[in-house]
């Protein structure tokens, strides 16, 4: 039983990093990122491939972060000025395009075969069981990420980001380079997602493109919304609640055997969908813009 709780806590920790990153994107800066899983995937695959090639885990993870940040800056530069709706669709498309590439570039990623046997760091430490050691690693990462994110959110940079989120016209009028601030937030969040991806890859010791679908992005949205989008602590709470409820329904089938696993999974997804709708509308004002509906093509940079 304790092993299961350790596993649960590990998954919560990894997901929390994703949620923290998305909170930086949307909660603080108002970026509607529907492609978050792309940075997760880049972190996971880079870390996996490099460690299997003999690179040290820390270096491999860092490389994943660099790649994800670079990708986020590229995507951001190309698409941020187009307006929320287009940014959302384009980031969604980008994450799917990446998944397609991972699936078909078999020489590099082994495509649908996936990459098994990824080595796990912090193994065979004296006196500590492996899974507990790994949980410690994840918790340390979450702690550092949380502290850094909080500092960022409360800093002048954070205040500027929130100003940009609430009224970018005013921010521009005050001479702020809106695009640069948005890119900064995008990069930070992408980096956190990449760390999460690396930790995931080394945890399950197997990555395959199927693991990196938009579902992950929207789970993260759900976790963020449950916790309240503008708050780092909320990101942690929301993640914990979401994962516990999701994993808890695994046991519901033992209690409700008349509903089979796929139907149960479908119910879970329906609940997520309803949750997204209900919480978006009714629970707290979202950190997003509150402006009247304007034709999308006329939104300025």
């Amino acid at each position, binding site marked *: 039983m304790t092993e299961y709780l350790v596993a649960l806590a590990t998954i919560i920790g990894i997901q929390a990093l994703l949620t923290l990153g998305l909170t930086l994107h949307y909660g603080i800066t108002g970026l509607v990122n529907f492609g978050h899983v792309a940075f997760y995937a880049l972190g996971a695959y880079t870390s996996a491939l490099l460690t299997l090639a003999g690179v040290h885990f820390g270096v491999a993870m860092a490389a994943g972060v660099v790649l994800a940040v670079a990708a986020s800056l590229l995507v951001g530069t190309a698409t941020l000025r187009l307006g929320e709706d287009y940014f959302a669709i384009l980031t969604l498309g980008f994450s799917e395009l990446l998944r397609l590439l991972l*699936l078909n570039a078999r020489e590099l990623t082994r495509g649908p075969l996936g990459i098994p046997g990824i080595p796990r760091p912090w193994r065979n430490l004296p006196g500590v069981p492996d899974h507990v050691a790994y949980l410690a690693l994840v918790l340390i990462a979450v702690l550092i990420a949380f502290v850094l994110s909080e500092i960022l959110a409360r800093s002048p940079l954070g205040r500027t980001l929130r100003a940009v989120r609430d009224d970018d016209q005013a921010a521009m009028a005050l001479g702020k380079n809106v695009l640069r601030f948005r890119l900064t937030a995008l990069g930070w969040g992408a980096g956190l997602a990449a760390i999460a991806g690396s930790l995931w890859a080394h945890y399950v010791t197997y990555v*395959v493109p199927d693991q990196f679908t938009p579902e992950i992005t929207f789970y993260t949205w759900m976790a963020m919304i449950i916790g309240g989008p503008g708050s780092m602590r909320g990101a942690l709470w929301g993640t914990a609640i979401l994962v516990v409820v999701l994993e808890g329904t695994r046991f519901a089938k033992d209690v409700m055997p008349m509903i089979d696993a796929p139907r149960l999974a479908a119910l879970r997804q329906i609940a997520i969908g309803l949750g997204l709708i209900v919480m978006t509308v009714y629970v707290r004002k979202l950190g997003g813009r509150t402006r009247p509906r304007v034709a999308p093509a006329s939104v300025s940079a």
Partner: protein
Amino acid sequence: MKLDRRQFLATGLAGGAAALVGGRAHAQQEALRIGVLTPLTGGGTVYGTTMSRMYTLVADEINKSGGVAGKQIQLFTEDAQTNPDAGVRGARKLVDVNRVHAILGTWSSAVTLAVAPIAVQARIPLFCVSSSPAISTFKDDDFLYRTAYSQAVISTVYATTAQKLGFKKAALLILNNPYGIGLGDSFPDRFAKVGGTVTGKVIYNPNQSSYRSEIQQALAGKPDVILFGGYTPDGIQVFKEWFQLGLGGTWMGPGFALDQKFIQGIGAQASEGIVVVEGAPNLQSSAYKNADKLYRAAHNQEADFFAAMAYDHLMVVALSVLAGNGNTAGDSIKANIRKISNPPGKVVGSWADASAAIKAGEKVNYEGASSACDFDDNGDVQTDFGVYHIKSGRWVLDRVIKFGELKTT
């Protein structure tokens, strides 16, 4: 309406905790706990369901006659959903919560390869029916076994069959996944060895809107036969489009993709003449006869290759535990697997015979329902194959190719 986050949190945690406690109660009894991780949804649904049923039937039979050294078999089922991610989560629950002594039934190669490290780390055996060649060479500390053929082997069967049927040029239309890619990698060499040439290799993804261009590509080199390497759902789509293109051609493919469901899906006319290759159950063995009898009695259907393999999985594990005097530790089971299933020894096939012999102190050699179940160093077995033609909507046996006939290198 403002939702109080604290209320939400409390409810969620309470629900989760209740669920965890409920799950814990299951794991307490002294029993042989078997994890069943089959695809109950997704591309492998039909086979996963068949296998799950067979596991239940075998467990019931053994439990009725007193269990394994006094221990009742408890089955815990998780749906692998033909998806490695779901498989991993299911495996985690089976290992961490249900504390199973073995995991049986992973079907898709992607699932098996993802779940294997978990089994290895937990030091429990994993029995699969997947075909990826990577499974043979997987560093599994001898915990990974399979009762199915490797793609490497069936490529030889396809090549041999093609040669016997007079096909000199072949094209490949394969699914972009471990099983399809494995086939695509291993077939061309083996076909070349019997004097054939591959005119083209086309890889497709599932859930495309249209396969017209892929089919066109596969037929471009005017092959004598097109080797299909996919599953039933995409198979139905591909063959529908092929038939409606009216281009003609002969097809060859695996039995698990071109089964009755497939034939129903595309109709007798479109399926006429397709060559089907599948593992042949060990029809003469007492194990198969017993498995078939069990399955027919409960489900009014004959036991196919997958049902036969499921029978063997549970039988081998149960016999290994019995041979170890009821020791359910993974290392003990592992140590006994070849002792009870490989020669020399008294040939047995049913639980009644085998358990009696083991209790009497005899060395047994379990001959399974799907094959002789003689596991080599990699945990693989040698199976025979049946070549069928689809005629008027049914499989008609053309010939049996025994493993010994294949020139495998």
